[in-house]
């Protein structure tokens, strides 16, 4: 498999170099809106992963069958189909998460990351690299969502609950609580409310840029 290092670099690029939030500055709306807790951040990230993976695979498969004249409607139909599927699946199997994410699941359809990857990557590359690209971008996105969600939950409610998606005892898929961490500070509700989201992402973006600059200085 001579392809392997290539695929891995496509995957890795999505996490740091092409990080959708900090570097490409795309998909900001859900990044801020649903990150009131670690759990919601993870849930949104997973829903996003499903849509991006599905649309990337299908758009890449159909790339030679897509007449340029109807390219956009076909992209939209494919993306919207996957969004609707995950929307109704969440509603049935993970109702608490469905309520928490609200209209931001259907809004994945206009998430600039998905249509951006379709246009810039999947419609030009074969299936395997497109999968690697989708996974890399998704992991990068999930990490950011969990980071922001975690920070806001910790400062806003004074505790953070780490969860993961797992098969629960009652045979259903759901969030399994791993650990809860309390910090001895007075919770600042403002962090849960909208302004907290802006301040968190602003500070993180400053840090990310600052570290990037320091690193490139050291290298140069």
């Amino acid at each position, binding site marked *: 498999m001579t392809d392997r290092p290539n695929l891995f670099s496509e995957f890795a690029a999505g996490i740091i170099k092409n990080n959708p939030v900090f570097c490409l*500055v*795309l998909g*900001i*709306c*859900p990044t*801020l*809106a649903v990150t009131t807790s670690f759990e919601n951040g993870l849930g949104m990230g997973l829903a996003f992963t499903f849509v991006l993976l599905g649309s990337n695979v299908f758009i890449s498969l159909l790339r030679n069958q897509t007449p340029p004249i109807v390219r*956009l*409607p076909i992209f*939209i*139909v494919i993306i*919207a*189909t996957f*969004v*609707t599927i995950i*929307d*109704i699946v969440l509603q049935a199997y993970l109702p608490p998460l469905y309520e928490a994410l609200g*209209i931001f699941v*259907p*809004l994945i*359809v*206009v*998430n*600039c990351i998905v*249509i951006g990857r379709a246009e810039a990557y999947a419609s030009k590359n074969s299936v395997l690299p497109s999968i690697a690209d989708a996974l890399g971008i998704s992991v990068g996105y999930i990490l950011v969502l969990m980071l922001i969600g975690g920070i806001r939950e910790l400062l806003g409610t004074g505790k953070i609950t780490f969860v993961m998606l797992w098969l629960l005892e009652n045979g259903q898929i759901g969030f399994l609580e791993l650990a809860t961490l309390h910090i001895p500070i007075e919770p600042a*509700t*403002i962090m849960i*409310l*909208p*302004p907290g*989201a*802006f*301040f968190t*992402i*602003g*500070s993180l*973006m*400053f840090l990310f*840029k600052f570290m990037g600059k320091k690193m490139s200085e050291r290298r140069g």
Partner: protein
Amino acid sequence: MPALLPTENLLELLISGVFTKNFLLIYFLGLCSFLGLTKDMGSSIGMSMAVTFVTGMAAVITWPIFNFILVPLGLEFLQTICFILVIAAFVQLVEFIIRKHQPALYRSLGIYLPLITTNCAVLGVVLLNAQQNYSYVGSIVYGISAGLGYGLVMLLAAGIRGKLLQRGVDMFGGFTGAFLVAGLLSLIFVNYFGVIQF
């Protein structure tokens, strides 16, 4: 089925769209264009006007589709896909008409139209209208007020960012600065317009 004529308080709807449920600062919808365009006052004005027009018209078009076609057929789950296709078709049509008949208007507004298809504010408005079961008039008013609220914040932020750049205050660089300005504005909206429940 929700009524055609308003059953809700229109003034309340207008105020909530512009202030208490501001699309940019409270619902976080349309932030991509906020980050990209508030560097410049001219493009902020252009984008705001285009968004207000499209959100209003999107409400006009999607309400009948939702309430006369999707709901009677039990196809509410197709709302996302229908709404996005209708909005995309509508935006293309408007762009086409404006470019052909109003070249001057096209130069100032038209260039922002393609950006609007992927602006979540528009899809957000129609999804919220469907979710809240507003009447026809109510949903149009809500659409327009959402656009106005979006415009208000765009102009405020463009003004502040412009002044900061003029004075040479750019310590945080582009996006970080934009987020901090948005955060401060959001703080004002949250506190003064009673989003925190009392």
